[in-house]
């Protein structure tokens, strides 16, 4: 029988037979490959125009001073000036970098623990499982913008429900989002709330993929519940955890909507307040680009964050693969 490759490239039975012999240099091109090119062309054209070209363009812009209006051939070349400016002189950008790291680190860490706990709970013998899981997953589908507004209302320092609840157990009202000390913590909390369900679903799928035999074997060897968790469940969930840590760190480093919705900005900027305590990189980049029209500088910020995400991803892959 001919291999799949031959079936596509040959059109007649005679050629099919000859393909078993020495390869011919000139084969007739199968008309089906034109169909294949036609089928992939929409995706290729769109990805070229809206992904591949833009990434090089973005780097190019980061080496120039540009206000989006000057024609591209005329934008002044400034070399690495945009990079030195944002890294050495832009305090807000450095603040934003630190905040973004803090946000991603705590958000992902908490959610790994909470998500695993939630998945173990939902995987155990309980009643009304679909009901509980619906509650867990509800925030995932809700727009971050809407969730930000919902939590802003709840966390209002004067008339929010959370302060009323705290008051009923004797805790004085907290300023939450209006305090530079607490605002970032509130944002992290909102992100945990929003994405914990995602971790639960992925962990659940991982848990259900572990064969019961392994637990039986562990039980025969005299392992108790805690031991079989540490020595069977956790090691077998490693690939799932790797996936969750990598994808969610990448996502968290790009946070925008939530901060935009839940925080106030300056006179001409959006979000990140109070006093830039919740400023994150993409938000600062948005302000730089679309409030002040400094495209070069904003592109440099994008490039820096892109490199940071790339490096962090590589480090995570390396760390989590090698800690066998």
């Amino acid at each position: 029988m001919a291999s799949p490759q031959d079936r596509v490239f040959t059109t007649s039975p005679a050629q099919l037979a000859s393909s078993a012999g020495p390869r011919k240099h000139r084969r007739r091109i199968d008309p089906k490959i034109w169909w294949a090119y036609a089928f992939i062309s929409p995706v290729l054209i769109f990805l070229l125009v809206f992904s591949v070209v833009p990434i090089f363009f973005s780097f190019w812009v980061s080496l120039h001073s540009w206000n989006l209006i000057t024609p591209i051939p005329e934008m002044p070349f400034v070399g690495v000036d945009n990079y030195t400016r944002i890294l050495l002189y832009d305090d807000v950008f450095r603040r934003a970098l630190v905040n973004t790291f803090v946000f991603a680190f705590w958000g992902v860490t908490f959610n790994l623990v909470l998500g695993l706990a939630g998945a173990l709970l939902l995987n155990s013998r309980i009643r009304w499982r679909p009901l509980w899981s619906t509650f867990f997953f509800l925030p995932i589908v809700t727009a971050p913008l809407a969730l930000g507004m919902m939590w802003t209302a709840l966390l209002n320092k004067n008339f929010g429900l959370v302060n009323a609840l705290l008051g009923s157990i004797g805790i004085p009202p907290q300023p939450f989002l209006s305090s530079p000390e607490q605002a970032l913590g509130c944002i992290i909390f909102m992100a945990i709330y929003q994405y914990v369900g995602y971790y639960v679903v992925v962990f659940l799928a991982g848990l259900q993929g572990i064969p019961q035999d392994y637990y039986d074997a562990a039980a025969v060897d005299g392992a108790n519940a805690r031991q079989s968790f540490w020595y069977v469940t956790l090691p077998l969930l490693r690939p799932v955890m790797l996936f969750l840590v990598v994808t969610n760190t990448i996502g968290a480093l790009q946070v925008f909507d939530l901060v935009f919705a839940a925080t106030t900005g300056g006179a001409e900027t959006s979000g990140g307040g109070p006093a830039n305590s919740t400023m994150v990189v993409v938000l600062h980049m948005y302000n730089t680009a679309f409030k002040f029209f400094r495209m070069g500088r904003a592109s440099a910020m994008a490039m820096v964050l892109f490199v940071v995400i790339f490096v962090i991803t590589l480090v995570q892959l390396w760390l989590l693969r090698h800690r066998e």
Partner: protein
Amino acid sequence: MKGLTGMAMRRSRLTQPFISILKYVALVSVSCVMLLPFYWMIAASLMTTAEIIRTPPPLLPAEPQWRNYLDVVYAVNIGRAYLNSIIVSALTVLGILFTSSLSGFAFAKYHFPLKNVLFTIILASMMIPFFVILIPVFYIVKQLGWLNNYAGLILPGVVSAYGVFMLRQFIQGIPDELLDAARIDGASEFRIYWQLIVPLSGPALATLGVFSLVGVWNSFLWPLLVVQDSALHTVPLALNNLRTYGAEERSLNLRMAGTVLSVIPSVVVFVWLQRFFRRGIALTGLKG
């Protein structure tokens, strides 16, 4: 052996009810936290401004103020925003489903020069975060004259590298014999795609569709940049307008009413199509 299992069982019989009570306590308290924002959103959306700023706030409105929802419609024209969001989401999702299944089919079932290179490029483009290409894409859309119209909202989003990957994986599982049989019957390649591959890819298309739908419906940053004309605002943009509409204590009920209106479709779609959604998440999670 027997003694050991017996001991374990005796212990578990003693601790079982205790553990199971603990489980339900945990489930109920977590559910309360998860539902708290949704409850407060609905309750506050029906309150008067006086009730909203009372401390401590009432847990339910004395008299539901359905008028608030009408006021939202006047304040930000949420009806128009709904229409825009429906048009944009429907066309974007249809675009994603069409382009993804078409090239997923090509990558799964044909052999052509540069196939692996092109597929690798598509996979690699999945790694490009949106913020990196935000400014160039904005510029390109501006040069194409798509600012402030549906094209700018829809077209940059009609291709999904992830969708191509997912559909290729799925279509690879469709037996080649079916395709060959159709060819012998004289079907063209496009007809094979349209009448064989598309119907057989139903489950994968449903999962991808639900995923993209929720993503597009909730998307905020891109519409915020592309659309200035309020007649073209999508629901998140209308909601954002409401966010800055009046002082917080005077308009919190309107904001929450707007939030309810914006959240309803994704929640309904989710509860209705949960299994596709969860399957999709599990699929992406296990591939790693």
